[in-house]
């Protein structure tokens, strides 16, 4: 099991635009991937419905988990996405 905790740098949090990019990246991976907020059950990182429902805000930390071949590389890519303080109107 690979795991890492990442701070969300997107000013709008993990919402429509960053969430879509995040889910699209996760969905390409063959293994299960989850994303969770502290104190909440982790959700399926491949589901845009689940990720929007997670409602992770700017500055909050989330924990990413995946298992299997390529899990570390995948989490690295997802971490990079969440760490981008992309402009609000990219």
């Amino acid at each position: 099991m690979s795991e890492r905790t990442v701070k969300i740098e997107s000013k709008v949090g993990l919402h429509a635009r960053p969430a879509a990019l995040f889910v699209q990246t996760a969905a390409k991976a063959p293994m299960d991937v989850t994303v969770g907020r502290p104190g909440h059950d982790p959700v399926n990182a491949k589901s845009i419905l689940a990720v929007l429902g997670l409602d992770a805000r700017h500055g909050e930390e989330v924990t990413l988990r995946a298992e299997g071949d390529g899990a570390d590389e995948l989490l690295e890519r997802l971490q990079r996405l969440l760490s981008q303080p992309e402009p609000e109107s990219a």
Partner: protein
Amino acid sequence: MTRVLSPVAGRVVGLAGVPDPVFAQAMVGPGTAVDPDRAPGQAIAPVTGKIVKLHPHAYVVVDAEGHGVLVHLGIDTVQLKGEGFTLLAAEGAEVDAGQPLVSWDPAAIEAGGRSPICAVVALDASAADLAGVLEDGRVHKGTELFTWS
């Protein structure tokens, strides 16, 4: 099968008409979009179900089949931090299709330099799951935009 209703009255422009590539390229999901009439109004629930997320500028309602529909009121409207929007329901509430959820003024959004176009998106769906998707023409609030099976 889920019937998805237009949250606003206006002119259908399709997702391709949304001035935001993430919506226009259907990265959030398939669906369509409506350029709303420039008058104060109340955006309604597109389906009967539970409000799983309610922001001033966007909401998600999930129906009994587990189909979640995102309504995004305008582009980059998250930046307004709720100003100009009034919530008429509460997150977690069960609502009927057609029930008013947010009151807002598309003309004011536009006057602030943002597009008031409303994206209506089927979450975790593929384009093949949708049928009868409107891409143009005028709609009333509550007009069926597409079905989802």
